[in-house]
């Protein structure tokens, strides 16, 4: 599992590179994933990107099927957006003020 950065969408704010716990993302005007195989999959970078440019995927070696996931935030609502290879899109909205049920 790792991330991809859409350079068309990236506005070069540098926040993803700043927060990655493994210092894996570098900046060259725009952000790029410098060490794809070292990603822990924590999704910190994805939640930090207000442009929705960082996309997360599961590696084929762990059963990934090619969906790309990014997030969108509005107030307390964090929306996880999953773009599937067949073109369909799934969304899950999480209220950050609500606890897990389990």
């Amino acid at each position, binding site marked *: *599992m*790792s991330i991809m950065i859409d350079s068309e969408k990236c506005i070069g704010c540098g926040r993803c590179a*700043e*927060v*990655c*716990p*493994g*210092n894996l993302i570098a900046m060259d005007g725009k952000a790029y994933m*410098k060490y*794809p*195989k*070292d*990603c*822990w*999959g*924590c*999704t*910190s970078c994805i939640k*930090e990107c207000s442009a929705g440019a960082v996309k*997360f995927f*599961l*590696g*084929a*070696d*762990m*059963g*990934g*099927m090619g*969906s790309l*996931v990014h997030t969108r935030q509005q107030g307390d609502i*964090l929306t*996880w957006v*999953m773009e*599937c290879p067949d073109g369909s899109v*799934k969304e*899950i909205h*999480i209220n*950050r*003020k*609500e*606890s*897990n*049920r*389990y």
Partner: protein
Amino acid sequence: MELQKLSTDVLIIGGGTAGCYAAITIGEHSPDTKVLICEKANIRRSGCLAAGVNALNAYITDGQTPQDYVDYARKDAEGIVRGDLLLTMSEKLNAVTEHLERLGLVILKDEKGKYVTRGKRNLKINGENIKPLLADAVYSMKNVTVLNHVNMTDFSVSENRIKGAFGFNVRKEIFYSITAKAVIICTGGAAGLYQPNNTGFSRHKMWYPPFNTGAGYAMGIRAGAEMTTFEMRFIALRCKDTIAPTGTLAQGVSAKQINAQGEVYEDKYGLTTSQRVHGTVMENINGRGPCYLKTEGITSEQDDALLRAYLNMSPSQTIKWLESGKMPSQQNVEIEGTEPYIVGGHTASGYWVDTDRETTIHGLFAAGDVAGGCPQKYVTGALAEGSIAAQSALRYIDSHDFSGISDEEISRHFWEAEKFLDRDNAPFDCEQLEEAMQTVMDRYAGGIRTNYRYNEKQLAAANERISQIEKLAETLCADDMHELMSIYELRERLTVCKSLIAHLAARKETRWHSFAENLDYPERDDENYLCYINSRLENGRIRIIRRRPVKEDEHYEHNDRQ
């Protein structure tokens, strides 16, 4: 590299859970004390809490007492715990929880405003943003300075007293020499010692952060600090492939561990943390694998709640469910044991500390996963220890001033790092040597491949190979500061591996299946081994020290250190 010299009253190494909380504690209790946090990443999302956590695993619920928590942890560790450390931690669990809530953590409450509990010791939360909340609290403290992207590598110690530490920036060519009156080490545990479950592209999809490389242990070992119980490795039982936590399934929807034939097997092997792993290993060995958590038949509302809960702590698992098109209600969740880690917050490995969390080096305190003797700490326990260590450091600096670091020592550490940058054309790269180390540990020191088992002959072979790789690591070269960090991480892991092997060899019994399963000594031996196995590096050799159990009515002090 450029050399920068800094000084601070208290230096905190590692701005994770324990480190941030130690800084907050000093900020609140002693606003004139200068605190510096050096963090290799950025405290906003660094360490174990990066993705978020699913619950607070350590809380004293109604009807339970701190002593009950001590008893539980002692039983789970088959007796090898420090009663004094567990009790002083347990007594603080509820206060730090309430503090977390004041900082903004969402904790589930009932209509009467009381926390809703999960089992005897857990609270339900939304833990997705727990780390940014702690980071914000740190930044609100006027006396705390944070240096992000600074990787610390060595302590400065003379006459067994801390003077400061060395490190470098992982992005800019800056080497730091930092003097401090006291140091709190909070670098977490060690992952990446053994070959992981996923060995290819997703090699870093492991449970414990691959960026916690055991730096704190290695720095302490090299400086002659005493370490304890490394042989009690932690192996997590996790969802296959995603290595996501299973507690939410086990506790949330009461999913039982079943084998391929659908039989519940957990009762057969016992319910301690190591027995649960062992049971799963045994079912596989005996041809009844794979093993699962039985989720088939749960409701679609439960499916939905699980999808959400996992997004808040381990998003890969939610994506896996969605991509496969099979929800947990339709398909049981396959489980497997991870590779072994050294983590003092789950098991008891780490620095040998006194009740006040001072290590055997004067003025060096330890908290969180890096500190030993006190398992089942989890998030709240790491916070509790962070606050205890901070209070102790404050008392210490009352009567201890700076003792400067000599230019000769600075220059030695500076050139040790610079040589990797100056050199080019090395036969090996860091990745190759890391793979070599993980393969050796996997095959000869009880990794996944040998079902976590080992014997003395294998350990001796492991020791020999790791020593050779240590020498090869000295020939590496680094093109930039990130590569320099990778080289230091490898060296730290190798140092930890050697101590670990010595500990595994020293406990000539099998007290915990899987965690420390010695095939030459398959039985538990209370007569000889109801004691701590400690170690110290002396003149380049690891000396094993056995110590008697410490109970909770005792205030333990180091009375035989230099």
